[in-house]
């Protein structure tokens, strides 16, 4: 047993993660961050104090036993570390990459009070990658309970819910409208942040625990939510269809060719592989691309354009850097790669090149006024500050609205913005039907969607009267699972 660590004895500096050199990586779709090797992981694991409070666990939306897995890394037992993570999260390689740890587990890390917090995300990724490389899968002993669960949407919310319900013994089928499962992890997040191969590996793990994926299935139109419950024999349904429907700016020139949503650009590039000549889907290639917005999706879109060969890529955002919603790391990466940021700038019109395409943008300078509803200072246009800006492609990354399909085709209660209304347990207005992720909250992060998928799974288990298998067995694997679950009784709601 090592002697007790203190804040003075641990390595003071956070272990940096090797990255592809910005100039080189801006031209390829290989991953930017290379991941820790064993030595680096051991060193960083050493920085965890294994403090008794474990604030990081409550900072994690899915409640991973973070000190538990870091302890195992420290013991140089990566397999055991994987076992700990897999208790709560089957998607370590994904979450290690795309979670905003700096506002979750790492934000509340005890070490972070005096030093840089432990690089929890990087360590999680280290374990997740090792699992994929080594082919580790934890197929728990699953006792079939005869319940059938239908999951609509195979993105992070659906995958997380599917994993929990399959582990609880349900027969789970996930329906996906696209021809490949993975949702936003596949079509949205580019390969240089999250390789599609990693997503496929995680999906394969779900298949191994018995989850079935049915692609090319547009629920709502091929069959409705009501039919799933009434005719197709699903005892419970989870809807995790995402937000989707991209917002347009509503300025003159919106419909010009050369103006497209970040969703369209990313889908063509990431899912349809338009950048590869062997694939048929075309993609517009701008030389001077302006991306409107400064969220994570905007960062992805800009960096994709750069890799597709754009000479200049601009970020145009009406607020200042301080209000920008993207992760600091993403902004930093984009900046390193040569993205030019235009803060406090708002487009007022997209300019026509006379042939239906884009020749530029008319923008106006903004200044920050009093805080608005979001708590951020409201951007106000500066009178007479319009100026023209040369660009041949404009990408809108200014958010999304609720996808209307489920609302159009079911009697589910929606909120006034068109998102599905749910209670605390994520139950919708229809018995046995749960919903979570962007279709309930509006656009959020991958891990929040996964958290919602798991929360819905708890609600679903309660509804079906299932006792949590892991809990029944007892032991330290119960981390992060709602204690209320102990009270579950085998009381199935009347079908």
């Amino acid at each position, binding site marked *: 047993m090592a002697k007790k660590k203190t804040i003075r004895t641990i390595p003071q500096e956070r272990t940096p993660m090797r990255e592809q050199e910005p100039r080189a990586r801006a031209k390829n779709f290989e991953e930017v961050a290379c991941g820790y090797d064993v030595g680096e992981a051991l060193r960083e694991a050493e920085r965890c104090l294994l403090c008794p409070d474990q604030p990081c666990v409550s900072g994690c939306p899915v409640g991973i036993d973070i000190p538990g897995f870091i302890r195992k890394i420290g013991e140089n037992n990566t397999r055991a570390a994987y076992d700990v993570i897999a208790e709560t999260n089957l998607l370590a390689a994904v979450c290690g990459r795309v979670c905003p740890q700096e506002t979750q587990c790492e934000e509340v890390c005890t070490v972070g009070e005096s030093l840089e917090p432990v690089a929890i995300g990087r360590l999680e990724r280290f374990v997740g990658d090792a699992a994929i490389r080594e082919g580790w899968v934890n197929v728990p002993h699953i006792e079939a309970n005869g319940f059938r669960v239908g999951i609509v949407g195979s993105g992070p919310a659906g995958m997380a819910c599917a994993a929990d319900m399959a582990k609880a013994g349900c027969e789970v089928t996930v329906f996906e409208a696209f021809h490949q499962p993975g949702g936003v992890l596949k079509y949205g997040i580019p390969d240089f942040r999250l390789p599609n191969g990693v997503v496929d590996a995680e999906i394969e793990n779900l298949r191994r625990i018995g989850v079935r994926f049915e692609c090319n299935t*547009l629920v709502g*139109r091929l069959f409705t939510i009501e039919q799933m419950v009434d005719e197709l024999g699903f005892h419970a349904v989870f809807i995790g269809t995402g937000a*989707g429907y991209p917002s347009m700016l509503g300025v003159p020139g919106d419909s010009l060719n050369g103006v497209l949503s970040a969703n369209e650009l990313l*889908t063509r590039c990431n899912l*349809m592989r338009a950048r590869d000549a062997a694939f*048929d*889907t075309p993609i517009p290639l701008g030389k001077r691309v302006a991306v409107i917005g400064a969220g994570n999706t905007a960062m992805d879109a800009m960096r994709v354009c750069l890799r597709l060969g754009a000479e200049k890529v601009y970020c145009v955002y009406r607020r200042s850097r301080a209000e920008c919603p993207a992760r600091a790391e993403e902004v930093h990466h984009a900046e390193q790669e040569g993205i030019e940021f235009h803060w406090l700038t708002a487009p007022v019109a997209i300019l026509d090149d006379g042939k239906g395409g884009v020749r530029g943008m008319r923008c106006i300078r903004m200044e920050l006024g009093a805080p608005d509803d979001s708590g951020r200072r409201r951007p106000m246009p500066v009178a007479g500050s319009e100026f023209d800006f040369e660009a041949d492609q404009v990408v809108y990354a200014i958010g999304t609205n609720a996808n209307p399909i489920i609302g159009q085709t079911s009697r589910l209660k929606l909120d006034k913005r068109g998102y599905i209304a749910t209670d605390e347990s994520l139950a919708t207005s229809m018995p046995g039907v749960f919903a979570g992720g962007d279709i309930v909250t509006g656009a959020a992060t991958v891990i929040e969607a996964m958290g919602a998928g798991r929360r819905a799974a708890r609600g679903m288990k309660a509804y079906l009267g299932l006792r949590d298998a892991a809990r029944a067995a007892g032991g330290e694997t119960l981390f992060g699972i709602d204690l209320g679950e102990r009270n579950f009784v085998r009381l199935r709601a009347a079908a």
Partner: protein
Amino acid sequence: MEAARLSQFEIVAREDFSDVTYLLEVRHPLMAKAARPGQFVIVMAHERGERIPLTIADFDRSRGTITLVVQAVGKTTREMQQSCKVGSTLHAMVGPMGIPSPISGAKKVVCVGGGLGVAPIFPQARGFKEAGTYVIGVLGFRTKSLVFWEDKFRACCNELILCTDDGSAGLKGLVTEGIKRAIAKHRDIDEVVAIGPPVMMKGCAEATRPHKIKTLVSLNPIMVDGTGMCGGCRVKIGSEVKFACVDGPDFDGHLVDFDDLMTRLRRYTQVERAAAERWSANCRMKDLADPAAPAVELLELPDPFDDVKGG
């Protein structure tokens, strides 16, 4: 989940109407059950293919099939013309997508189909007929040899006005001539439904505007996902922007900005032409190896501004 044990997208029948127009009947029992007039599917021919929207031309619930009529104009549709044989499978077919056309309580309707729109107007004409509506069909083809489904339409239309550009069958002229004739004869037309190339639908909307007859058109802009996610299919309807895939595909023809639609349809014209040329060159090389195979003529892609007519 046997009920949703989904399709392998097997092609169970094929019919060639002309050198460029072909019909595919694809097995998908669940979709055949769900499909309504006016809806569409998105098809991928192979793993590396693009996703192309095709309007459902017919559905047969007892056979459990979906019928598509395809015009070979670009790389994908020409490739499918060669590869889609009875017994082969598509890589993907998802749908039915879009809001079904309202088969309203209209007493008398005109169903107009031109070119590619002839097939998809069929389920609507049949739907109206089944609802007890008096149906006047107006079909436009370039020439007599391209005419198809005349019998099917005769069976579900109370009147059928056939138009050909060269007058080789039926009325000489565009479908707008047929509409004018129908309006002249019937003073009590409640609704016109038109499907075809944008320029044709624009002509139809203009033909009915002075008479204030409700006119629905079915828009088929460029799409990727077909589920409201990419916004590529946005169209201007009056002062609003709508996504054809989830807010349509049917819209009030008097409000549609057709010029905007046609400009947007040209987005990838150059890339598509290049892809078709590359594909065609490739095929010719194969043809050299197989002298029995006829050389493939490269079709010009139809410009959406052209009056594309008849298969």
